[in-house]
């Protein structure tokens, strides 16, 4: 990891250059799955507290970790980050797209006058109005190269992001109850520290010859509201595996919300086999599909396709001194 220039910042006398908003974990948390608002279903502070009250040592540990994230985070590193799909049919052209970015590191950078450069710790003491954007982002996309009008909807994409929002808005003092009662304070946390996302789509011509849509999303934060779900989603018809996990990233406790979705479709008149497999785990997930179809008479026609998405978050990088 890179070495940073030593610095000292007074900030707001709370360890940060801004006031930290409070969040009541027992109400007002927006759901990650259905849009409802209510208590957090899964939470853990950066000091490892996930229920009840916190000791002073646990609160202090959460402060240390929150400051480390704010001031010293350098990067986020992906583990598996890949997406691919391919299909062919006797009706028309074959389609394929593939991208891999395993172990990719997204570095925390700022943009000034369209120029990107590392956003070093000492710069985080003040809000420089010249900074147009800042974040840890890596993304890549590959489209089918046949070059016709449906090439663009045959694609594979991967991305990994750190700090989805301006960090001033995503670090919180977490309260297990009313924020008016300091005895409910259980430590510091973050609403969004990272997101890895992969997706692949395949569509043959005609669409009834086969299509697939796979995606994996891994979110990491300190608190979530949402319901776990596995099996066929009644709304979309996709095979899904959506679960929350306690996990450790960069030596800190977090909640991982992993959503995997897979769906392959072939024409209803076909004699076909379809397999969708999804698997969500802490900080990672996979989704894959396979299909083959025989459309029979009057014209003997077949199609087949395969696809897979993987996404995982491997670690956080920090500046040293």
């Amino acid at each position: 990891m890179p070495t940073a220039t030593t610095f000292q910042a007074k900030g707001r006398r709370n360890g940060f250059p801004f006031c930290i908003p409070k969040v009541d974990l027992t109400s007002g948390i927006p759901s990650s799955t259905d849009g409802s608002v209510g208590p957090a279903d899964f939470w853990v502070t950066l000091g490892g507290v996930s229920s009840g009250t916190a000791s002073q040592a646990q609160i202090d540990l959460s402060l240390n970790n929150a400051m480390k994230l704010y001031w010293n985070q350098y990067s986020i590193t992906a583990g598996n980050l890949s997406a691919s799909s391919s299909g062919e049919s006797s009706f028309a052209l074959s389609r394929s797209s593939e991208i891999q970015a395993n172990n990719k590191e997204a570095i925390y950078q700022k943009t000034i006058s369209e120029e990107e450069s590392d956003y070093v710790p000492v710069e985080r003491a003040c809000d420089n109005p010249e900074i147009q954007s800042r974040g840890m982002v890596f993304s890549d996309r590959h489209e089918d190269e046949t070059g016709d009008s449906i090439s663009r909807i045959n694609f594979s994409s991967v991305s990994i992001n750190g700090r989805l929002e301006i960090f001033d808005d995503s670090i919180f003092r977490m309260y297990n109850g009313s924020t008016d009662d300091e005895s409910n304070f259980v430590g510091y946390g973050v609403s969004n520290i990272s997101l890895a996302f992969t997706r692949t789509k395949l569509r043959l011509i005609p669409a009834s010859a086969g299509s697939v849509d796979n995606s994996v999303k891994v979110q990491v934060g300190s608190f979530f509201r949402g319901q776990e779900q596995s099996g066929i989603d009644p709304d979309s018809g996709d095979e899904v595996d959506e679960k929350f996990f306690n996990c450790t990233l960069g030596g800190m406790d977090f909640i991982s919300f992993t959503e995997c979705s897979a769906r392959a479709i072939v024409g209803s008149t076909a004699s076909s086999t379809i397999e969708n497999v999804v698997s969500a785990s802490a900080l990672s997930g996979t989704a894959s599909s396979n299909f083959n179809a025989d459309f029979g008479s009057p014209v003997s026609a077949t199609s087949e396709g395969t696809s897979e998405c993987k996404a995982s978050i491997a670690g956080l990088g920090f500046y040293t001194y």
Partner: protein
Amino acid sequence: MDATSSYGAATFVKQQTEAAAADIYANATSLQDSSSGLSDDFMDTTQGLGGGVGNRVNNIYIFLTSGSTLTIPRSAIFANFDIAGGNTDWSVSIPIDNLAYSGGTIAYNNETALNVGTGASGGSAQTIARIPIVRDKLMLNALGVYKEGLICKNGEAIVEYYKI
């Protein structure tokens, strides 16, 4: 002595003999040693140590993050201060535990580092925060009211007492 003579004697101010131009130039251009602003004897007196005159604040009051107020009396601060004994610097050393005043015994000594350790936990956790009182034999404007707060040093928290 008549009345006029008595008045003259009472109001007579002895005029300084006019100095030679060379003396005036020498005084005007000589560098003053900062540590000799006040004599050691004067520094040891009540007035020299910044207290005892009029209604000036005579203690250090610290508003702690716990909500209570810590009072450090001037008499305790200077009880063992001895310039003649070699104390050119003097500090109040406040014991820190878990990023706040620990409630332990406050020390007074010639150490000058504002903090010992950083962060709340681990082998390098902060154990002491200091308020500077005397530096280079000169009394700082140290008595008064402070707040306990956190600053950031290389991304780690340090307790600092800042004057308000």
